[in-house]
């Protein structure tokens, strides 16, 4: 038996190059390389050849097989490329199929950012209940019994008796400061705590007032904590939160639970004028000895610093929000901006 390998090669090449789609190419593959294909037939015929002929024809058959195999791959690649070119192109400007995007409320974002800054400085986050006792919210904070803030005009009282104090009702905390009392009654210094949370005051709702709002309280107590450290700590905080270029000032103020007390003002106005626009952002001071006394600390043993800020105010200043009600309306178009 003999085969004209040259002719076979020629024939296979013509047929393969003519194949225009994957099916035609597959037919070629079956014809030449299939189980009953041409190459297989040659291998089957090798047995009948003489010893001398066998190696030569066997080599020719292998060459033919490799040649056809290579050609099939090449042509296959060409067909694929051709087909891809024919496919319509995607309009990549059509919108993606977007999974719903969840966001934290802007007030939460502010609270988390502030707490993260203080956590980075060594503080831990603590919280207290929204329903408080008169003792924790006022008495222990050195707020006198006849102080106006205790009036029903300034504090919400609940129709719920204080189990710890006769003839006293529980109230909604009007500040986060009672968390200071709770922390100090339970723990001995050193203490470094930030306490975010909701507070309540019976203010009629308008663009700048809300009967429910959020505060963040901070407390650092140890031996010999100084006013210089209060300034240093809050300066560091303001630089991290508002940016390094913010101007700050500590202005003396009055709070019953701190002495000395201050309010912190910030300004982005770089002019040297003393009349530049200052915005009040928090209250702070050195913990009043009377507060330590109510928590059972020995007189003179510790000093401490405390500060408190309004979360809504911080958000309003940062984002230019001019109506506090927007935070509680939860309009989707508002929420989606943060």
């Amino acid at each position: 038996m003999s085969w004209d390998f040259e002719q076979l090669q020629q024939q296979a090449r013509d047929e393969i190059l003519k194949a225009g789609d994957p099916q035609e190419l597959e037919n070629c593959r079956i014809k030449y390389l299939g189980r009953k294909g041409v190459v297989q037939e040659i291998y089957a015929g090798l047995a009948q050849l003489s010893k001398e002929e066998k190696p030569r024809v066997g080599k020719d058959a292998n060459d033919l097989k490799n040649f056809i195999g290579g050609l099939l791959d090449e042509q296959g690649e060409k067909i694929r490329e051709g087909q891809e070119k024919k496919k319509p192109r995607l309009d990549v400007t059509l919108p993606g199929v977007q999974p719903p995007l969840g966001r934290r409320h802007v007030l939460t974002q502010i609270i988390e950012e502030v707490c993260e800054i203080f956590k980075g400085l060594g503080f831990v986050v603590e919280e207290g209940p929204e329903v408080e006792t008169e003792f924790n919210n006022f008495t222990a904070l050195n707020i006198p019994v006849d102080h106006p803030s205790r009036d029903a005009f300034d504090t919400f009282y609940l129709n719920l008796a204080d189990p710890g104090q006769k003839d006293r009702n529980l109230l909604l905390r009007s500040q986060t400061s009672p968390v200071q009392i709770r922390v100090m009654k339970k723990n001995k210094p050193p203490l470094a705590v930030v306490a975010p949370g909701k507070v309540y005051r019976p203010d009629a709702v308008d663009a700048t007032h809300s009967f429910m709002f959020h505060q963040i309280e901070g407390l650092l107590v140890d031996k010999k904590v100084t006013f210089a450290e209060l300034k240093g700590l809050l300066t560091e905080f303001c630089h991290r939160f508002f940016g390094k270029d913010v101007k700050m000032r500590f202005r003396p103020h009055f709070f019953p639970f701190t002495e000395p007390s201050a309010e912190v003002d910030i300004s982005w106005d770089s002019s040297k004028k003393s009349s530049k626009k200052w915005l009040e952002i928090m209250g702070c001071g050195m913990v009043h000895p009377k507060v330590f006394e109510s928590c059972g600390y020995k007189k003179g043993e510790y000093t401490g610093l405390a500060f408190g800020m309004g979360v809504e105010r911080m958000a309003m200043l940062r984002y230019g929000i001019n109506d506090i009600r927007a935070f509680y309306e939860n309009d989707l178009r508002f929420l989606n901006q943060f």
Partner: protein
Amino acid sequence: MKASINWLKDYVAIDIPADKLIHRLTMAGLEVEHVEKKGGDTVFEMEITPNRPDCLSMIGIAREVSAILNKPLKKPAAKVSLPRTKTQITVKDKKACSRYIGIVVEGVKVGVSPKWLKTRIEALGLRSINNVVDITNFCLMEWGQPLHAFDYDKLGGNKIIVRRGAKGETLTTLDGEKRETGPDVLVIADNAKPVALAGVMGGENTEVTPSTKNIFLESASFDPVLIRRTVRALGLASDSSYRFERGIDSRLVKEGALRAVSLILQEAGGKITAYHDTGSVRTAAVGKIAITPDQIRDLLGADIPASRCKNILKKLECSVTGSGQSLKVAAPVFRNDLKEPVDLIEEIARVIGYDNLPSAIPQIKAVNVAPESRWDQRTAIRGIMTGLGLNEIITYTMTSGEALARAGEAGVKGIEVVNPISQDHRLMRPSTLPNILDVVLTNINRGQKDFRFFELGKVFFPGGERETLSVVMTGPRANDWLNKENRQPVNFYDLKGIFDALFQRLGIPADYNAADDGAFESGRAARILVKGKPAGTLGAVCPNVLKNCSIKHDHLLYARLDLETVYPLIGAAHRRYRRISDYPPVTRDVSLAVDKDISFADMTAGIREKSAGLLKDIVFIEEYLGEKIAGGRRGLVFSLVYQSDKRTLTEDEVQKIHDTILEDIIYRTKAVVR
């Protein structure tokens, strides 16, 4: 409190420009809020903190200026000789009126005020009325002591009685309003009628007019709390009440009266014919406060020379003895706020100016507090919920009985607020649904009908407050323009999927069973069980609730989960890594028709136990409710996944276990293979 720089110059030499002085006052704690140039004068308004009633006068402000600028303070002195004749004054309520001075001046000439007087009081925004009234106002502003002049001849019986008002009794005050007094209000009366609301405003009936010949000058001390209540009850405040509310140095009762009467004699003439002082000066011994430079340094973190401290305190009219290692300080009587060393340290610090004190970063030691807050767990849950595509909302925590009833939550009682801000916020909410529905209504009314919200907020019960995770959602299942099917409205299973994902991520096993709850649509709600304990509900909001709340929308899903039940379980179970099997899983699909009362949970209950540990997963594929299934039945399709950790399972082995399981299901549920 308003102040005029020109007026201040009567008492202290001011050698710096007005804007510098104003800045220094602000930085010493007298925050200037408004500045106005008036002719050759600068008038500014300050916020005086409640601990500093002594600054509610020009003398008080001048004293601060004297300390800030380190200049002496010159106070005006009044020299008046008083007769022995007493006027008739009866104080019925001594607690409410601790001191009352009355001076009768006869033969005054009421007329236009001289220019100097007009200039002074008009600078502070007061209207000039006549010389006598203007002098009382001048002294009020100069000393901070409220004064009132009555037409002596119009006082019935020439008598003054300080007493409580009576029910139905009225007085027309100087502003022309007729007001009811009542027993909660302190009045000044003559023998028949009230003539002034004590500490607040005088009455028209005894007003000093150009025809007045004889006057009765009042200078008194009234209880701050009583005045505050009167102001609130009547909705009437005045320059006098503002000062009484904050407390006035009782010595000023006399000083102010004498200053006023001396000016009246000077400007309106006349003669003092009677005088009476009912009370006494508060002479409670003022204790001395000892303070050392170490104390100052330890609190401020600054070294301030003792001489500087001494000088500042003296300028503030403290008497200071000692030097060097210990100062003994007695605060002036008008400074009730100076009681302890820290109070004096604040005085020193604020006069120097906080901005002139050093600043240092604190060295925070390892903190002694084991936090009990749920901050970390809450933050984790918030992260999961936002990751699942939900937007966080924050709602008010107050509601009303009506809102609860509308929301189908009439059964739960909230805690009453004694002094609510409005009828809609009378209760501390026992459920988040009413407040959540408010947010839904707001958004739907504004045409926003595609949202997924969650809230981490509290609900309140007499036994305590509990944190709750609430979820509310509506809109299409996905904004998927590729696949119309996905644009169907969200349903129960979308909501349940969120909770499945939450519990899976927290590593807490949860079960669900059918729930009937007023707020939810019947047959469309499930109770969430955490470790077998009910911890919440999820499902479709009852259409009636939507109707009651005027929400014009056809589907809304809501869920609430009590986090106090969930929190202790987060991270409680010790997690161990389980080696991933090297051997292939084998999946067998099951398609059964089953009675409608049989749940999927019923069907799969206990089948893992029958698989010799080889059933690794049950994957639900489809529920079929079509007509091709015989009456009262539904089709359920799911796959069972078998896998061993030790070897490749043979077909025969899997088939044997699978047949056992299938037989068990069919036996228990009377299911039919489809």
